[in-house]
């Protein structure tokens, strides 16, 4: 075995397929997008070289700045609502409640549905005329709270975030659940003998032991928010009046509705750079924290 792993030809051979796929499909596209982002180009014919003009324009564009702020806000909100919620559910499920398997499946179901389906579902929930949300508010006598959730510029953004957060709770719960399950029973038993049950066990034994998973999930959540697209596209398509725009939706409409390939490519490069920077920064942050402990 060691002989094979030490063999350079074998290594090349095994790495080649994924390297070719990665290089050809992902890396090449990013490089090409970067090239396009330097052009003033409508997608047809020849583009005119514009240097970093598109990037300068981008940071002066109010709609773009709002979209970037929206995605950051989504990241922060998701981090502080979705992950705690997922962790809570995972802790409850692993504490030996009845119907563990049943609830685990139920919580995971949203994850198995396509975003478009979930988007349609929430469109119906939010519908101002017959949606369940306004109906329930009406039945409770809270008519003053009833509104046009996705159409009102004050509520559209948060209303669009809720399904995104809701959709992925089950996914993170499952990750937490499996890593809690993989904690050695001996550790948990030993803690029990020392009198650590319930909350104490959760806070001093389980959560510290699944820290690596929490870290991974935090990175997933932040990166996921940076490139959020599908749900926004289905729910509001960036409207009303660009209030719910995120960088990806703006990139899409710049390229395909406005024929601004160069500008849209600049936004796509921004998204890539932002995701890489965030991932690196988060990893650094966690490392600093670790060494502090």
């Amino acid at each position, binding site marked *: 075995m060691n002989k094979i792993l030490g063999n350079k030809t074998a290594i090349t051979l095994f790495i080649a397929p994924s390297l070719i796929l990665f290089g050809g499909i992902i890396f090449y596209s990013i490089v090409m997008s970067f090239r396009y982002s330097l052009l003033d180009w409508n997608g047809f014919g020849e583009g005119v070289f514009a240097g970093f003009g598109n990037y300068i324009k981008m940071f002066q564009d109010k709609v773009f700045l709002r979209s970037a702020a929206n995605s950051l806000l989504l990241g922060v909100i998701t981090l502080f609502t979705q992950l705690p919620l997922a962790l809570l559910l995972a802790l409850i499920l692993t504490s030996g409640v009845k119907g563990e398997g049943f609830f685990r499946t139920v919580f995971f179901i949203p994850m198995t549905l396509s975003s478009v389906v979930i988007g349609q579902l929430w469109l119906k929930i939010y519908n101002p005329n017959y949606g369940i949300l306004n109906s329930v508010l009406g039945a409770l006598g809270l008519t003053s709270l009833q509104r046009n959730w996705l159409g009102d510029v004050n509520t559209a953004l948060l209303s669009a975030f809720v399904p995104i957060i809701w959709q992925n709770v089950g996914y993170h719960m499952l990750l937490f659940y499996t890593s809690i399950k993989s904690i050695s029973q001996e550790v948990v038993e030993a803690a029990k003998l020392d009198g650590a049950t319930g909350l104490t066990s959760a806070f001093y034994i389980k959560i510290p032991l699944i820290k690596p998973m929490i870290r991974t999930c935090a990175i997933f959540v932040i990166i996921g928010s940076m490139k959020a697209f599908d749900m926004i596209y289905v729910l*509001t*398509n960036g409207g009303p*009046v660009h209030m719910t725009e995120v960088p990806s939706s703006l990139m899409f409409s710049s390229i*395909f509705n*406005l024929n601004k390939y160069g500008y849209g490519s600049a936004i796509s490069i921004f998204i890539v750079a932002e995701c890489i920077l965030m991932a690196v920064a988060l990893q650094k942050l966690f490392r600093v924290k670790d060494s502090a402990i």
Partner: protein
Amino acid sequence: MKKNLKKAAVVLSAAGMLAAMAGNAAFAEEEQITLKISHIFVDQNDGQTIGWYRALDEYKEAHPNVTIVEDTADNDAYKTKLKTQLAAGDVPDVFYAWGGGFSSPFVDAGIIENLDAYVENGTINMDAMMPDICNNFYYSDSLYALPLDSFIGVLMCNQELFDTYSLEVPKTMDDLYAVSKVFQENGITPLAMGEKDKWPGLFPFGVIALRYGGVGTTTGLLNGEGSFDQEFVAQSAQELQKLVDEGVFADDCVALTNDEAIEEFKQGRAAMWYSGNWQVGQLSTDSPLAGKLTIVNWPEITGASGDQNAFVGGASACLVASATSEHKQEAIEFMAFMSQHFSDYAYEEGAILPTWNYEGDMELEPYQETLLGLMGGADGFCLAWDTLLDPETADVHSTSLQGIYAKQMTADDYVAAMAAMR
């Protein structure tokens, strides 16, 4: 039994091969060619799709040497796909497009074929077409596309609801405001609107602009003459804002898609709907509104100096041909054939208004008579603004109007945003 079946199958297939060979021999002198076609006719129940395939089958029968390879996608997906394809240099021989601003970058980039020479050599017979139907397909005085359908924007009224509250279908804007009030008091949305999609909201604005500015002035402005900072533009935006403020549209109109708005209208929760005539056929024959539909033009604006009987409408959907096709002559012939026959057949299906002189002998449905009547007496036509403007200005236009519908922008904001573009 099985053996016999097998034998029969062998004999049949042999016979089939012989027949096929004989068929090929007959057309051996003609070159076998393949034309790649992209279009949006995917909904098998749609009258336009039925019309398209009737025409296509006829073409195939008449041209056995031409193999047609179709590539289709639904409207929005089609636009995305087409632009990606063209950007990559993969141009279909003939493809579905829209006139005005949509195709103008294709013309500038030399992607689509100038048709002037084919009009001259008789491949395209302009005399068989409706007059002025190609107005939106000329770029620098050259023809680049052939029309597929034409439409007019009409106000569809649920006559049953009007009768219930003893109301008359509105003839002037004042009437419209008055009937809207009554409908509102009775919990009915006066005018259905699906402004989440943005384009539906351009229709009322478009027709109001014709009332204030007239067809000539509006068309000129959209084709690049002068600034948007004009009185009739401001008046139109103010009128639209008034419609929104008076509650003529539902408060939630920016949260509804066009399809959802149609449903509101169909189910009697909205009394009127203003849109292109595309759904008139289906609404008046196969919907809860069958037999209850009154179709009129948008109301007049008393005292306004534009064209009071002009329509939003005209021809926009079209076919264009690749400038780099290997079989240009055949592609243009195909295009002319399809344009003309689609016009006939989709019209017979009640899906479109004809773009070529109709010479069939079909009996017209009452709603078709109504539409033709409305068209006949018109002061003129002008497409919705987004079709004629360049994409960027069109986006500012439609987003700012969405702002008015959402009560987030005022008429002044709209004019300022447009004036900043030109």
